[in-house]
């Protein structure tokens, strides 16, 4: 393998690693499974409370 090919492969590997790191970091910003369900519960609770109030109960 000539030195230019090795350099190209190395460059590609570095770029792939950077892309991977960026994408993983973006995914870590997403809410967790529990956070999502807690958010859903909070909204369902709010709907329930408001509905009870509107129904006069």
């Amino acid at each position: 393998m000539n030195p230019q090919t090795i350099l190209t492969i190395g460059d590609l590997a570095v770029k792939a690693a950077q892309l991977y790191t960026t994408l993983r970091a973006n995914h870590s910003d997403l809410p967790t499974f529990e956070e999502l369900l807690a958010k859903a519960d909070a909204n369902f609770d709010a709907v329930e409370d408001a509905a009870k109030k509107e129904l006069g109960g």
Partner: protein
Amino acid sequence: MSRRLLCAICVICGLLFLGFTGCPQQDPYRKAAVAAADFAAALKTFQDSEIALHNSGSIDAETHKAIQSVLLDTARAGKQLDQAIRVAKSNPEAWTAVIAAVDALARLQSDGVLHIKNDKARQQLAASLALARSALGALQLALPAKGATP
């Protein structure tokens, strides 16, 4: 391009693919949790709009109470759904409880009392109801086939 370079590119792409197979978006429980959160948010938006329309006189008292009654049942069923998703994550055998909860929610939505006489009010609520239905559809898509576990 040399064969070795092509091989190297394939290996790198393969590693990237393997790295993302464990991505949280692929997890059916997470997909169900995302859809449940979206559904709950859309339901709240729908309720807020309906209350505002009732307060402005666009929805009569009888229809308003009927809608709020359906929303009360839907919110309770929604909390049961959240709990079923939690249980299913630790025990995949319980996934059928999630399917049952989604079926109950779908029935509530289809049987929902939406006989609003005022055209403008009905149109204003249509968008938020469509969002809720869309989230429920996403929830149904996240579920495995009946009788199967993810």
